[in-house]
């Protein structure tokens, strides 16, 4: 099912990130995602996240869809030129994948192959536009595709915590014009700032899913504050997590995430959970959040 149809149903759409392993044994990943089936609308499979070599998004998406779990395939501009990207979009269609999330991608220098050539033949806006064109039966060079064109629901990302915010909003508008039908955001911890962002983009009339990252420790929060663009975990949340003894941390972390979800779901159209290995805790979080 296309994710856009879920939004049209008017419910709070829930997605969860799925990070393929570095190696070919993916049974564990599938086993962790399986229990989420009743609650999660779609599984968003990363494309060599953080520029680290892993199993690709396409293969995992196909396996998920064979198991009846709805995948969203992430596609970045980092590693492929326009020929390979368009071909992978067709590959995805052939393999029955209906949702694509188009992103720029991290620079290879941030990952485990910093020597790799950064491709970026297209940027995220151009990629969205290229995929949109494929759905109309044309490739980027203007040639016709033979037969029935592929169909996709296209997603994109936006960083509501970026400073300044304006360039992000300008680019978001271009992404919508290029074909983006929904957005997911970087992790949100500051409700007021997020509400302000939503106010600025409301008139676009495009569903936005707020990003949630489960905080594993106060150190992780501090690390993200120092190193991840657009993420700011306020001191109150860090202190709240630090205030409980270590054996109660997991529970506290889930409580914080559930509270954020409860408050965020009224502000936007969906929640995107990035659990970073804590998939097993997602059902508890959702239960605590009343979802």
């Amino acid at each position, binding site marked *: 099912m296309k994710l856009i149809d879920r939004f049209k149903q008017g419910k709070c759409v829930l997605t969860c990130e799925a990070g393929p392993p570095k190696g070919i044994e993916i049974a564990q990943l599938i086993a962790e995602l399986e229990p989420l089936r009743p609650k999660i609308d779609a599984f968003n499979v990363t494309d060599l996240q953080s520029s680290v070599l892993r199993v690709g998004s396409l293969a995992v998406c196909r396996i998920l869809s064979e198991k009846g779990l709805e995948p969203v395939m992430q596609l970045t*501009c980092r590693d492929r030129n*326009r020929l390979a990207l368009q071909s992978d979009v067709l590959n995805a269609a052939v393999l029955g994948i209906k949702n694509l999330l188009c992103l*720029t991608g*991290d*620079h290879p*220098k*941030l990952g485990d192959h910093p020597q790799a050539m*950064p491709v*970026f*033949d*297209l*940027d*995220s*806006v*151009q990629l969205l*536009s*290229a995929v949109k064109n494929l759905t109309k039966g044309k490739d*980027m060079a203007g040639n016709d595709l033979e037969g029935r064109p592929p169909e996709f629901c296209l997603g994109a*990302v*936006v*960083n509501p915590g*970026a*400073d*300044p915010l*304006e*360039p*992000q909003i*300008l*680019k978001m*508008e*271009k992404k919508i*014009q*290029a074909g983006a039908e929904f957005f997911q955001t*970087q992790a949100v911890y500051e409700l007021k700032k997020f509400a302000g962002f939503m106010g600025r983009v409301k008139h676009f009339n495009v569903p936005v899913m707020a990003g949630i990252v489960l905080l594993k420790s106060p150190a992780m929060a501090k690390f993200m504050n120092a*190193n*991840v*663009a*657009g993420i700011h975990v306020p001191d109150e949340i860090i202190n709240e997590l630090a205030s409980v003894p270590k054996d109660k941390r997991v529970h506290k972390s889930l409580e914080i995430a559930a509270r954020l979800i409860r408050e965020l779901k009224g502000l936007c159209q969906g929640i995107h959970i990035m659990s970073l290995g804590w998939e097993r805790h997602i059902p508890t979080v959702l239960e605590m959040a009343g979802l």
Partner: protein
Amino acid sequence: MLFTENKPFDEVLESLGNDKNIFLLACNGCAETCETGGEKALSTLRTELKKAGRKVTDTCLVDFLCNKILVATRLARHMEQIQQSDSVLALTCGIGVQAVAKVVNKLVRPADNTISLGGLQGLWPSEERCEACGDCVLDYTGGLCPLTSCAKGLLNGPCGGAQDGKCEVDSEKDCGWLKIYERLEKLERLDNLKKFQKARDHSKMMPSADLRKTLFYDLER
């Protein structure tokens, strides 16, 4: 020597948008040799602009537009006309446009495409960088090259990775796109960023067979 060719006049006209009053600038260095700058190209462009209904407020010929000190000195007595114009149009390479943009507080647009640098970043190299993409977009960015100042060479705005104004790949390096944003904000040209920039045509980076046969190209290669 740096090789340039004139942008098709239609493209130049389109890039000017609604700007009516244009200050024309031409480089008398490499661009003169390529016949894409110098006295002759300047007067051709002036005539064409007038025919197209634009007003040329004034013109200026500078030996090397890549030399910021020279540009600042030569333009000093034109600053008033420049300020009264809607924008500056420059017959020069990508380095020249970027250098002029550092000196004047006005939108500076390229009238040429840079196709080969001959291993140089201007004859008076400084911090400006051009990679001779053959389809200069400096009009859209306000005179800062997105291909050389952004680590990913993005054309449609910043990625989400900049942290405290610095690029995600190097905390010592400014995010090129935030610089472009600040520049356009200052020039009150943020609307520029709403324009969709199509994917680059990499074949434009290949110097034409005719150019490759010239003696200059041979000497400078």
